[in-house]
């Protein structure tokens, strides 16, 4: 039992680290330039020159995957950031106002956003503003907000009942100060775990949006679009569709394992229960 916890975390972190490293490395170096097309050298299998072969435009697959990692990770991180930046204050506010009008409003608003079909709204957003990585971020970020608001509120409510909060109240601290100084640090682990999960969902969402052509635009490589662009060639150049698929799976798997590991590791209550 005790041996399993680090293992999940270690495997998850290792997988995540590989892709984060690849994304960071792609900022300064890729084996080949992803902007340069070489139609004559297209659809090549793996070779010493192109470790993972080339795509239908003769671009180096490894380089494409590296830059694609950057796109996916950037979109997902910023979307999680938006969700946190909006959702956490709302959740804290609702918890501080437990049972009050603000609480009710925040929760109703949450239900309302949840009631909208996320994918349809994401498609509408890109129809209004045009498809781009930025609008994909916006769409994913909006739907992250109620998740963080709910988790924050739930966690914060539990902390509010504890004695040291009572002590802080007695010492005359305001609601805002208590929320920031005492509540937030105590729910940080909760938020990190949720953040990891939303991060992995963000990667999947970005892949889905790009797959239908609504995410990052060319020439910027993105895993979802690489998949979409190459799927008609799956029968004679399967690596084009299989590799980005595996990259998505590995990254999401890594993040989910990390999230699970972190939850077990950071939250002693849950550890006991398992």
């Amino acid at each position, binding site marked *: 039992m005790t041996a399993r916890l680090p293992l999940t975390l270690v495997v998850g972190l290792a997988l995540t680290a590989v892709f984060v490293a690849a994304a960071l490395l792609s900022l300064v170096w890729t084996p080949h330039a992803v*902007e*340069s*097309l070489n*139609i004559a050298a*297209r659809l090549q299998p793996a070779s010493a020159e192109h470790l993972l072969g080339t795509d*239908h*435009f003769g671009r180096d697959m490894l380089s494409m995957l590296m830059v694609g990692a950057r796109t996916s990770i950037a979109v997902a991180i910023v979307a999680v950031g938006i969700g946190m930046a909006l959702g956490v204050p709302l959740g804290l506010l609702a918890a501080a106002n437990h049972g009050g009008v603000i609480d009710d409003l925040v929760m109703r608003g949450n239900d309302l956003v949840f009631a909208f079909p996320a994918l349809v709204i994401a498609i509408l957003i890109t*129809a209004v503003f*045009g*498809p*781009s990585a930025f609008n994909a971020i916006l769409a994913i970020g909006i739907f992250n907000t109620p998740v963080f608001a709910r988790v924050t509120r739930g966690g914060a409510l539990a902390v509010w009942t504890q004695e040291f909060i009572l002590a802080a109240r007695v010492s005359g601290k305001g609601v805002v100060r208590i929320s920031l100084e005492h509540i937030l640090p105590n729910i940080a682990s909760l938020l990190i775990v949720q953040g990891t999960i939303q991060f992995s969902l963000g990667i999947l969402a970005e892949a889905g949006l790009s797959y239908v*052509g609504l995410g990052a*635009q*060319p*020439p910027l490589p993105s895993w979802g679009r690489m998949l979409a662009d190459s*799927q*008609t*060639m*799956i*029968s*004679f150049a*399967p690596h084009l569709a299989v590799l980005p698929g595996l990259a998505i799976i590995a990254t999401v798997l890594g993040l989910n394992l990390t999230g699970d590991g972190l939850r077990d590791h950071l939250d002693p209550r849950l550890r006991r229960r398992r």
Partner: protein
Amino acid sequence: MKQLFSGPALATFAAAAVMNVSAVLAAQTSITVGMQLEPPNLDPTGGAAAAIDEVVYANVFEGLTRYQADGSVAPALAKSWTISDDGLVYTFSLHSGVKFHDGSAMDAEDVKFSLDRARAEDSTNAQKRLFTGIASVDAVDALTVKITLSNPDGGFITNLAWGDAVIVAPESIENAKTAPVGTGPFTFSRWVQGDRVELARNPDYWGDAVALEKATFKFISDPTAAFAAMMAGDIDAFPGYPAPETLPQFEADPRFRVIVGSTEGETILSTNNKAENLSDVRVRQAIAHAIDRQAIIDGAMFGYGTPIGTHFAPHHPDYVDLTGGSAHDPAKARALLKEAGAENLTLSLKLPPPSYARRGGEIIAAQLREVGIGTEIENLEWAQWLEQVFRGKDFDLTIVSHTEPMDIGIYANPDYYFQYDSAAFQGLIEDLKLATAPADRTRILQAAQKQIAGDYVNGYLFQLARTGVANARINGLWENAPTQANDLTGVSWSD
């Protein structure tokens, strides 16, 4: 990819599959045709979508005249016609015994109704311009129609062959959008919206009976799904097959036949001639020399397409090969840009959905980068493209295939979206309208081709090929696309 599994373990499943096959073999008179886009409605006189004609043209609806597979125009509902000496009065005599699918007779009054409806003030016919030259339509008797034009028009008989000019009946036109009633060899059976349209043989057809008893048009927009459906045998023929990259596989497979023909689609890198920087002919010439046509044809269309150097179909007898004037020459392109003082250009490149535009756009962006021109690619849906590019003229570059036949005249309209304004060219088109002798027309058309190529109005890429796949036992499908249609009247199965 090789067969994933094999062996006797699968015998039971194989038996099930064989049963399916024999069921198909027994019914050799039905066909399932794949189409990429679903028609929004089924009334060719009330919508622009090519998909409408691709279902109903020649199959359900017929006009006075019709296009044939080779692009020529032949009589259809009109048996014959005479033209007055001044070229203004056309007298058509109609076939007798023609019935609409609802049993009512087709006569001169229906012709008058159809044409008057198409040219009326509140008409929603997408090609209203085809009918603007008509001064009056008169039903002389039940089988004779007299059409008077306000000016002579050598193309009038061809205009009447368009899908937008088919003959409809006043009794049934109200519901034509969902339940079309025409005079053609197939009757409409049903439309499962989002999936397919089914047609059945018209037992009372006035002309030669067709071989097929049942025809189904199935709508598959996704190229991968189209490939899968064709390979799985769900579709018998896919005339406008959207994934040229997979054609070699069909060619290698004896079950299938690949049909490659020509279209009227000049695929061009449309350039906003009024945009900053692009109003300088040297910049446009630089772009033309930066483009490697063969790389685009290979990369975007997997080799299918014919390079063009001007806005004219290469299979037309008056075509002039001007590709040499805009040969791939990056060094020259860079020199021209330097001369024009436009070395750090960034241009918007707005791309509509077809893969020739999306893939071609990525390749052109890379080729322009080679000569120092940056691009900002924006993928648009058709509705956005129409609004932003075609009407709003808010673009630098776009890629689009102009599929109307003989459309070089669009360059004479300075308000057309690429905003080419040349008095010399407009003069040529004026001359063309007056010219009647074939030699004169050829001379003028060739001069016009040279004029726009020399002005580097747009980047001329390639003539779009029509790539289709069909079951090897199907005969009689159109090879080329002189108009947008899936004419099934001559289609049959061989054993």
